[in-house]
């Protein structure tokens, strides 16, 4: 560590995060190649990567930008379905699967970013709990809209119709050999699985590089200044809307990328998989991992995704256990006596809290 002493503390933490993720990947990948993982464990790998990306990107909004978003799964949904459509329909144009996967992820990220702009413009005018409820509402709207979507493709290209009544796949008028990709409420079916653990790792690393560099940049400092005191930040000439939008749209795009990877990991996909509960789940990862703490989100997502899965043998009791653990952890981390005992992490957690609570109380009392 002596060689590193010239670096800033945050830089060291960032490098440690990259190193930790890479080491964890290498160990798991080695065991995967040697057949050391059970089928169940293997099936967790890609979703864990997706949810790490989700948690890190949500942390950018909730922890760094300080806005409570309850609709993050909506962006994942947009990314997943647009990614699936891209991945399926480009089969002829790009035969090489990994390239097609990258294109699908980029398409997912792009569509989610557009959704992020559409949602962000009105939403970021609101504050506090009102912002939370509107993001929740957008999440629900996106879910319902996708339920009404019929998409198919044939040699003439994509056919998209919006089903408001009794339209079915037949109304797409596909040619012979055409394939329906999204069938309304049935969701997307017959998806070719393209995602791999390696792709998941790459996406996690790309996300970490983007988010960590953003936070440590001038832009990131502006975003955090707005979070800590909006009025003071505005008075020194920071464009509040612009910086909030940067955080929000970046986060939405990353969630879209995660969604595309997630969608292409399964044979079929329904939009109810990205409902309010999924948004909440990711929020739990972020809060338990530590607000504004990126490596905390990585660990939070990994542990909290695997915990309920690993408890499957306890069948019905596992979610009950999960709920109790959740409540107890929240009570313990916010207990003043335990906080004093805890080390620097708890110190930081506590140092941030009162400022945020005060600000929240003022703005929407």
């Amino acid at each position, binding site marked *: 560590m002596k060689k590193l002493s010239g670096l800033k503390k945050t830089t060291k933490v960032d490098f440690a995060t990259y190193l930790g993720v890479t080491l964890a990947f290498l160990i798991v990948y080695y065991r995967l190649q040697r057949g050391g993982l059970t089928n169940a464990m293997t099936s967790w790998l890609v979703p864990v990567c997706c949810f790490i990306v989700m948690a890190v990107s949500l942390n950018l909004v909730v922890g760094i930008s300080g806005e409570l978003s309850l609709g993050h799964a909506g962006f994942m949904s947009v990314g997943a379905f647009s990614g699936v459509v891209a991945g399926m329909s480009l089969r002829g144009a790009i035969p090489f699967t990994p390239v097609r996967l990258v294109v699908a992820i980029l398409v997912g990220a792009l569509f989610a970013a557009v959704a992020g702009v559409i949602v962000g413009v009105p939403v970021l005018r609101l504050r506090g709990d009102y912002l939370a409820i509107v993001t929740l509402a957008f999440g629900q709207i996106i879910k319902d809209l996708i339920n009404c979507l019929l998409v198919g493709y044939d040699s003439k290209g994509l056919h998209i119709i919006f089903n408001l009544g009794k339209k079915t796949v037949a109304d797409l008028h596909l040619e012979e050999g055409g394939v329906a990709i999204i069938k309304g409420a049935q969701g997307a079916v017959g998806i070719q699985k393209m995602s791999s653990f390696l792709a998941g790792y790459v996406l996690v690393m790309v996300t970490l590089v983007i988010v960590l560099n953003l936070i440590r940049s001038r832009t990131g400092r502006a975003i955090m200044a707005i979070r800590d005191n909006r009025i003071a930040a505005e008075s020194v000439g920071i464009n509040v809307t612009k910086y909030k939008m940067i955080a929000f749209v970046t986060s939405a795009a990353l969630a879209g990328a995660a969604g595309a990877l997630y969608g292409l990991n399964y044979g079929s996909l329904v939009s109810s998989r990205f409902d309010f509960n999924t948004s909440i789940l990711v929020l739990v990862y972020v809060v*338990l991992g530590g607000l504004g703490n990126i490596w905390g989100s990585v660990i939070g997502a990994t542990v909290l995704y695997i915990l309920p899965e690993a408890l499957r043998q306890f069948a019905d009791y596992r979610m009950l256990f999960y709920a109790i653990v959740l409540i107890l952890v929240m009570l313990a981390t916010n207990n003043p006596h335990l906080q004093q005992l805890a080390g620097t992490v708890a110190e930081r957690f506590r140092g941030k809290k009162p400022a945020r609570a005060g600000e929240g109380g003022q703005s929407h009392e």
Partner: protein
Amino acid sequence: MVFFSYLISGISLGSVYAIIALGYTMVYGIAKMLNFAHGDVIMVGGYISFCAISYLSLPPAVAVLLAMVVCTVLGVLIEGLAYRPLRQAGSLAVLITAIGVSYFLQNAAQLIWGVTPKIYTSVVSFRLPNSLTRLGLSSEALVTVLSCVVIMVALTTFVNKTKMGKAMRACSEDKGAAQLMGINVNATISMTFAIGSALAAIAGVLLCSAYTTLLPTTGSMPGIKAFTAAVFGGIGSIPGAFVGGLLLGIIESMAKAYISTDLANAIVFAVLIVVLLVKPTGLLGKYVPEKV
């Protein structure tokens, strides 16, 4: 005539939302927290009244009372055990705890009552004359709307005229100052949760009487919609919850009838967004300027 029947079903649905929204709005007004477990208290109320009627063969009125008592105790317990230790913590910590409580209630209900839906027999036993039912008016709808109005009037009187109500208003305005005036803040918050949960029990009974199926997840969607209704009307305001609930119910019913069943929820939420953009504190919410 068809329009009229949709309007009635909208008003009756809206009344249920309004009763649930009252619980949300009171808790928010005083404790400044989003109580996401409120929807699951509705579900518990539904199950308790179901068990009382089906297994213990109690008369419906007793079953409703029993459900109210159980939910009140549950609400006060949740507040005391899970939320009170977090009074000084950030709002996100409380939110996550509320979500934990919500998961807990849903899964506990699943363990106790199973995942197969229970068929709920309506607590309303009288039937309306044919001339009224032909208009689309059901006895359940009538009881729902009447209970909503009674609750609304009773609650407004309670909050405005009694000492406890005054204490609640004081706490919602400034907890510190209220405490200095000799108000027991913790007791007041407990009281709010008790009232909110009792209302949730009534809402649960009415909701299940109208829709007749009961699942551990029954409460979550009405919970979210009622929360939307509370925000719609201006969260923290009691008349706001009433107006918001009714409007939301009517909009949902009309959207289902004339636009699309699948999109009804989306339309409800879209209207909420538009309202919040025009009036960021909801229809009847009061604007509090930010101080530097």
